[in-house]
């Protein structure tokens, strides 16, 4: 193919997967890449599954990521990582997953039938899976909602974009009162991968 980097962000509405996809796109733009992004959600995004596609490179045509080509699948929740795991490039791609479960409220008996074994299952398929305690870490940092930015920090170490650009992007996009916490969460995420 070409040198385009494809990323798939998956999560539950409200978890902030769209925000970190957007931060990634803006960082890629800032680093001089042609970039496209698209979000797919159903009738109501609230509490439902949300997928955001990001692609950047020298020249990007399709905003849609094709299953099997993603350099990384970033799952903010285990079931959603599983739902989009087939997007990962089975040879060179990585699934970065928040080791965290959100039980679908609208499915009967969901707690009992939830695929708790997702991470082992995906590894057994020969995929490269990195499970990170992003929600736990974010809570320890003072706000569980920053799990998305912890994962973004981890992702940033895999992408050809300088740390300075990431930090500049966060500063531009995140409201001042949340900035300090998020910069910290981003840094902690970075250190999880090194």
């Amino acid at each position, binding site marked *: 193919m070409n040198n385009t980097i494809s990323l798939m962000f998956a999560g539950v509405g409200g978890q902030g997967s769209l925000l970190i996809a957007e931060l990634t796109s803006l960082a890629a733009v800032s680093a001089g890449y042609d*970039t496209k992004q698209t979000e797919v959600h159903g*009738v109501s995004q609230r*509490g439902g599954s949300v997928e955001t596609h990001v692609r950047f490179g020298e020249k990007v045509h399709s905003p849609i990521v094709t299953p099997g080509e993603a350099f990384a699948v970033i799952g903010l929740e285990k*079931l959603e990582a599983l739902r989009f795991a087939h997007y990962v490039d089975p040879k060179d791609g990585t699934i970065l997953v928040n080791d965290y479960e959100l039980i679908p409220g*609208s*499915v009967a008996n969901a*707690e009992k039938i939830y695929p708790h074994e997702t991470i082992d299952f995906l590894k057994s398929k020969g995929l490269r899976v990195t499970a990170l305690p992003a929600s736990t870490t974010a809570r320890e940092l003072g706000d569980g909602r920053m799990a998305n930015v912890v994962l973004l920090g981890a992702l940033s170490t895999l992408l050809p974009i300088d740390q300075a650009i990431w930090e500049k992007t966060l500063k531009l996009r995140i409201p001042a009162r949340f900035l300090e916490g998020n910069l910290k969460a981003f840094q902690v995420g970075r250190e999880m991968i090194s």
Partner: protein
Amino acid sequence: MREFLLGNEAIARGAWEAGVKFVSGYPGTPSTEIIETLATRFPETNPRWSANEKVAFEEGMGAAIGGLRVLVTMKHVGLNVAADAFMVFPYSGTNGGFVVISADDPGMHSSQNEQDNRYLARVGKVPVLEPSDAQECHDFMIAGLELSEQFKSPVMLRTTTRLAHHKGLVEVGERKEVERREFIADAKRFSVPIYRLARRPEVEKTLTALTEYAETCSFNRIEHTDNKSVGVVTSGIAYQYVKEVMPDASVLRLGMTFPLPAKLLREFCSQYETVYVIEEGEPFIEEYMRNLGITNIKGKEIFGVIGEYSPGRLRSALALGNPPKPFVEGINLLPRPPMMCVGCGHRTVFAALKQLKVTVSGDIGCYTLGALPPYEAEHTTFCMGASIGVAVGLQEAGHDNTVAVIGDSTFIHAGIPPLIDAIYNKSHLTLVILDNSATGMTGSQQNPASGKNVLGEDAPKLDLEAFCRATGVGLVEVVDTWQRKEIVGTLRRSIAYKGPSVVIARGACQQLPEMKKRNIIPFSVDEELCTQCDACFKVWCPAITRTEQNFPVIAANECTSCIVCAQVCPTDAIKLMEVMA
């Protein structure tokens, strides 16, 4: 300067740069962000939410013949509502530039059907532009206004979901003010029904001129490669997928898909053994080519008509390989269906309708979720405003136990004529208006019942109960939507009432900025009083989950303090956090 913009934001930006001075529309996925962007970033374009698409179109039509550059926005099915005006406008033609957005939704992400509005444009003899990326959304918006003025014709800018809802880099410019054109109140031109016979040939003259223009216009372009065997004719976002999957093919990209250029298509196809026609939606271009007698084409028989296109889909259709499928073997890939929001006021109404075992004729809005488990208390839904007419019809067919349910915005959009009809024709209609002061499903936009306009300024607020009484409804009751017992009681009275009755279940949408900003004291579970009876789980609030000890727990940062779970708790174990402290 380049900006990273959504297709819809790029359209808004283009409209602003082109000196647009009037914008109207009705929210509808995937078109809504255009007017939202104009309202927040470019209010000098004078944007508004109209009561419905027909009104929006007519206001735009008036502003355009009055001499302004105009943009009107709607989703594909919105154009059905506006079709009466859309079909007649070409008979007079426009004065100032007039572009209408038809945002089609292949894949039906948030729509009831998958209609391809290029056919409506053909019926109306309105030229269609189809951009292929965010940059062209911006550029075609500007060029569309110029085209409109050049041919005195309204122009349709057709987007599809992926185009409208993807972001890309856009080279933007500054606003150029455009002088208002002179308006001559010429009945021979603008009073169409009287002068129709004189106007009819003018429509054909314009179409002929546009057809000639299509042969050489810059919206259509050929990208030749060395490949002499395979050519592709494509339009819209599908062009991007073609570039991705068939980088070596020669491409005729049609940016103007009505009228189509016969000569250009014939010439292009004559150079290749096989020409693939790749367009999202119906075989609009393909049928035209077949009618021209072009035979070396392959299209819908391999790519299909249903749903969105994607690079993976093209690859499969062209036998270039099948992308991997989701993991479903050996693991339980649970679905995650959408739910009503935490604190949504619709919950109590659907719980009551379920309890009362009535047939529910529903409408278009978030409350279509009432058709899904756990409620399954909405039995028919078709299109905007249909709840009332369908309920009247069901009652005429002997199903007396029918209740119509409609939201405030949808009621104003298309529910008023059927309500008046129901009264005039002596129906025993029971109507529930879910009044959440917002056009909720598209993102809580303002409407005439919300007391705010698109700019967030105070606006006259429609008095729904006075309005219903004025139409002749015998029993009108207003109830707080979070008082579940009162909802049941009010519904019972309304259903038993001999004559048309309306229940207004009132409570603001939790997604409204003022609702999100307010100071909320969340509810919390007192585990000492909780008997684990699970009654609160049957409220189906996403903020209620279980602890490891099987007690319910309410997420404090999600709770909207709507009180419904506390109402159902038989042991009063659910209390305001402050009270517990």
